[in-house]
């Protein structure tokens, strides 16, 4: 009985965490943080068709149940996973409770995975066909306004989707 209650509590906590992001509109989801099966299960309970990739930052001799493990955030940018990110544009659901002492490194990883670090923004824009020599964010996370201004600075005026997004955020 106690085990059942414990499992149910874990299930409820997992669902509470999953629902905290609002409607998850992408079928491709990355869960960033130390592996927690309750949270993975909660996502599958919401939609069994989610393609979930769990990503964690661990030292090299540490075993982990995550799908993909990096020893530091910058490894993400040159990885096979990054090709998936550029192709599928997954949502990144962060489990900050499980970032613990690596909070700063996970924050950097989050920025890379969502395309909001300077380096990853540049890679995303190149993938969009916009050759941007550098992006200047002064240490903060990029926003959609940085995308729009970078595209304009590169002299590209006919990207309809970017122009449309520019109107949507006015």
């Amino acid at each position, binding site marked *: 009985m106690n085990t059942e209650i414990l499992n149910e509590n874990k299930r409820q906590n997992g669902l509470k965490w999953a629902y905290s*992001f*609002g409607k998850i*509109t*992408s079928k491709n989801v990355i869960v960033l943080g130390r592996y927690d099966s309750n949270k993975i299960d909660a996502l599958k309970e919401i939609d069994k068709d989610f393609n979930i990739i769990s990503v964690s930052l661990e030292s090299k001799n540490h075993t982990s149940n995550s799908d993909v493990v990096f020893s530091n955030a910058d490894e993400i940018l040159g990885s096979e996973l990054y090709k998936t*990110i550029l192709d599928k*544009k*997954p*949502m*990144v*659901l*962060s489990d900050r409770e499980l970032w613990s002492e690596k909070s700063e490194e996970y924050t950097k990883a*989050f920025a890379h995975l*969502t*395309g*909001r670090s300077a380096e990853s*923004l540049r890679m*995303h824009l190149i993938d*969009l066909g916009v050759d941007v020599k550098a992006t200047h964010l002064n240490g903060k*996370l*990029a*926003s*959609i306004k940085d*995308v729009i201004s970078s595209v304009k600075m590169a002299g590209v*005026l*006919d990207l*309809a*989707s*970017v*122009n*449309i*997004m520019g*109107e*949507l*955020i006015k």
Partner: protein
Amino acid sequence: MRILIISLLRIGDLFMQKPLVQALKDRYPNAEIDLVVNSVSLGATRLFSDIINNVYIFSRDEYQRSAGEAHFNILAGISEIDNLIDSLSDRNYDVVYNFTHNRLSGYFAGAINARECKGLSYKNGQFSVMENPWMNYLNTCYSQKSGSIFHYTEVLANSFDLNVSKHKIRSSHKKSGLILMQCFTSEARKNWSLLNFLDLKNKIESFFPFHIVRILATEKERLELRNYFSDEYIWVADLPMSESLLKEARLFIGVDTSIKHLAALCGTPCIELALGGSDPIKTGAFIEGAISLVSEIDISVEQVFSATVNILSLNNELETKAIEQNQNLECDKWVWSQLLGGYKATVPAVPLTNASYVAKSFKLLEWQLRLENALLRDSNFKSYNAIIKEDLKDYILVAQEILKSNIDSGGYFQKLIEVLTTTDGRGNVLYLKLVEAVEISRALLVLRSEIAIGGIDVAEPRKALEIGA
């Protein structure tokens, strides 16, 4: 043939555009017609199911959300928009009709690969729009607070060279005893007091005991309505349910919301309470016999009840003043439509009993003659470096009389008013603009003189204009 219609405004606008979609289907009965709408309007597209083949969704809220929330990939929204554009381009449309007419829709329309695009589109670094007098009218008069005598549906239809007419009242409505009311708009200043609605409901029930009154509401609105009405009077209804109920109703009484447009589509007689700047001439319920009660401040319960009695008693005898106003409006619309072109309507006739029409005609002519005389006198304006207010006193006097009298509801001298409020005082520029404005009002008045009054040609006004020339 394959046609795409872009309609990215609100649900009410989509409802107002339905006659255009129907007109396209009537013109091209074998065409496949697709529609792209905002996600919030998806439910409303059920009303198009008999004329539309496919509905595509522009997920505006989701794109905005992805732009604002950090756990979305930074290009997620842009990527989704690209996917939508690619899907639509793969359909190889013959024509894209952009009924939305804003920059966003222009970018969107221009990006879709189609043989032709009608309406605003962005291509090769610039926006292009159909150049026709109705489109110019849409761009100028609809952006101003006053001046349009045409309904949005009419102006849009004529811009795209489509024939539309007001929805007809369905014949079955007379068998119904159901009266539906709708009480809330999104702007407080456009709302009518709930106490008034309660008073109206009581009056209707007392005078027409075989009718029942119910209020269409959302769940959120129900909470406030319960302070005035018991639960049995409040029907919480989503869009499909509202449509079903309106199709059964004898009458709809409501404020300025999309539900009034839905009522019109359902063929239900409408009484609209146009408060707080609502303009029913431009955006009222587009159905024959709709009654609009207009006020900036308030409308009395007696006025609404009187209109209700009018409709429920099958009394087609509107007050004389209302009849004359309708006739005057139809004449003004005919005059403008002849100037703008493409509006195929027979010349209206005005009965001799319409004294206000005749009085208005002579007053308009008087102003026209004064302006033309002033222009003849002031042809040397062209040589002035700058024209000061004192030089324009005769024109300003006429303009002040026009504005104060409220006679020029048809906008015959609209251009003159615009010119006099311009800040450009250079002599040659201002003179040419005054000439243009007076030429427009002359053209309109010549057309107006073709309208027969009581079946008799009125030779005097035409003669007066000929002398003025």
